């Protein structure tokens, strides 16, 4: 469907792909007036046409980083180039070249979907006719055609997300920023949005930088990811390579919520020397071994002997959750809980 979109560039947008990276971030730092150091020296590069994910819990610095790149947040120091343009020095040029869908859908509740898209297009310099044409195409692409003349106020959360994303695409940006694009969506809407993003990437060949705290989302959508924790990037690579770096499968020992707080620690001690690596996370102990099936009886025996048999056990392939655990020392859910308690 996107193929039928008239892809003539809007006035002011770059007409040819500049060579090199679409996004360059060097030693970016942001300290808010309150004293909160949200970003503490982040550096990364995003290649043209790539889907790059910034993954981490709430409060890790994802939205601040993406906010700086989208010109909404002023960096304290460091450098950020988007399509070769310095975001701090020439924000207006950056805005012409990017599309941005925020964490909270930024929509005009009193407007109809079509009015909203047309106005957005016209603010990017499109003619009335072209903006109208694009609005119709985007409404069709995002399956909002029937609701196009309804006020956005009446839209569901998923529909608001989609119209917001459509608005970010009305001027066919070369670079798209998506801040937690599926936050608050039900699993079905999330899957639908993933499919749409994949279609857009294929047809628009745009560079996409997305932030998410859903590991599955990053795994499925991104070519490369950066794991960000407490304002710093702790790991960066393709999801496959990051997972491969974890070794083979792992054995997860679950001690359940009723267990003594010291039990996982005692289990870890009991297994010393039996595994390549052991990591505790809440009531779980993750044991990394070369051959889990062979090692399991040995491990259970050692745990029995120490008087700390697990409530349950499972063998799993490495996930990005494991990668996060390896680099930060805690699981993503725990980091989220910690952030929630702080808030």
């Amino acid at each position, binding site marked *: 469907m996107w193929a039928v979109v008239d892809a003539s560039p809007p*006035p*002011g947008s770059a007409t040819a792909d500049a060579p090199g990276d679409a996004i360059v971030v060097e030693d970016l730092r942001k300290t*808010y007036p309150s004293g909160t150091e949200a970003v503490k020296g982040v550096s990364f590069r995003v290649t043209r046409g790539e889907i790059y994910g910034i993954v981490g819990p709430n409060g890790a610095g994802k939205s601040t980083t993406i*906010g700086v790149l*989208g*010109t*909404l*947040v*002023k960096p304290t120091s460091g450098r950020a180039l988007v399509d070769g343009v310095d975001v701090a020095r020439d924000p*207006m*040029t950056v*805005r*012409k070249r*990017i599309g*941005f869908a*925020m964490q*909270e*859908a*930024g*929509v*005009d*509740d*009193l*407007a109809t979907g079509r*009015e909203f898209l047309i*106005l*957005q297009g*016209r*603010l*990017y*310099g499109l003619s009335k006719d072209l903006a109208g044409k694009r609005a119709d195409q985007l409404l069709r692409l995002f399956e909002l055609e029937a609701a196009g003349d309804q*006020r956005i106020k009446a839209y569901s959360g998923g529909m608001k997300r989609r119209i*917001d994303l459509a*608005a970010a695409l009305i001027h066919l940006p070369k670079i798209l920023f998506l801040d937690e694009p599926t936050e608050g969506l039900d699993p079905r809407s999330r899957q639908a949005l993933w499919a749409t993003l994949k279609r857009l990437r294929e047809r628009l060949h745009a560079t996409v930088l997305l932030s998410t705290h859903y590991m599955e989302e990053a795994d499925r959508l991104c070519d490369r990811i950066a794991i960000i924790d407490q304002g710093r990037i702790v790991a960066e690579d393709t999801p496959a390579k990051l997972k491969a770096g974890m070794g083979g499968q792992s054995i997860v020992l679950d001690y359940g919520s009723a267990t003594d707080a010291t039990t996982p620690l005692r289990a870890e001690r009991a297994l010393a020397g039996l595994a390549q690596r052991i990591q505790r996370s809440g009531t779980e102990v993750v044991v990394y071994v070369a051959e889990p099936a062979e090692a399991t009886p040995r491990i259970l025996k050692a745990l029995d002997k120490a008087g700390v048999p697990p409530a349950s056990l499972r063998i799993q392939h490495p996930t990005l959750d494991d990668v996060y655990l390896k680099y930060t020392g805690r699981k993503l859910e725990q980091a989220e809980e910690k952030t929630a308690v702080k808030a």
Partner: protein
Amino acid sequence: MSLWRPTWLLTRRALIQFPRLPAVLAFSLVPPLIQFLLFGAIFENLPDQITRAGGSFPTQNYYEYIAPAIVFFVCVLGIANAGVALVNDYQNGYFNKILLAPVSMWAILLGRLISDGLRIYVQGAFMLGLALLFKAEPATGLPGALLMLAIASLFAIFSVGIIVANVALKTKDAQAVQAIFPLFFILIFLTTAFMPEQSIGSELVRNIIKGNPAEYIVRAMHSLMFTGYDAQDIGMAFAVIGGFAVVGILLTRFNYRSVYK
């Protein structure tokens, strides 16, 4: 993109949406309307009483006397919506959406203030039309009436409008914007809008009125209503509007920084 194209686009957006917000229209029309009808009825005999007591009153029709005041009230109350609307845009994320577009923040503010300014001009005209039913006719006719509306609307935009917009930008809180509304009522009541200066007993209040910039707007409107085009009164009104515009632009420029985190 020039400043005017996005300003016009955002002005148009608000103009299209006003009919979808009946509460906003009612809020700025109903209280002044009630005041006009109520004050007019209660003080109907006041001009006669003051004249009999040896005083002077510019008209024998009290409805005519308060007509400019009510237009002024409509404009001041109506423009306050600009701040609330900006906060609403901020809270539903739309403000940031526009900031992400290649649009100057001045276009966002001007679009808001011009659209609300046009609305209060029309609402003020409606009140003047209603006043005609009570035989309150401007001495300067239609041109004078249009000038009267322009003076009230411009003052409302550059004083109240810019103040509420700045409070909205700074606090992003609708309650903070609404909390300053009572100040604007005081601004109107501490003028000769409802009573000629010589009929006000307290010297202190008379002195406060002289120092209230809104008084010079009321004086110009009264001139246009009762006597004619008084260059000094009209000039003074535009000087006050110009002063507020300069201060308002500087204040907005200062607060502009708080929009970006």
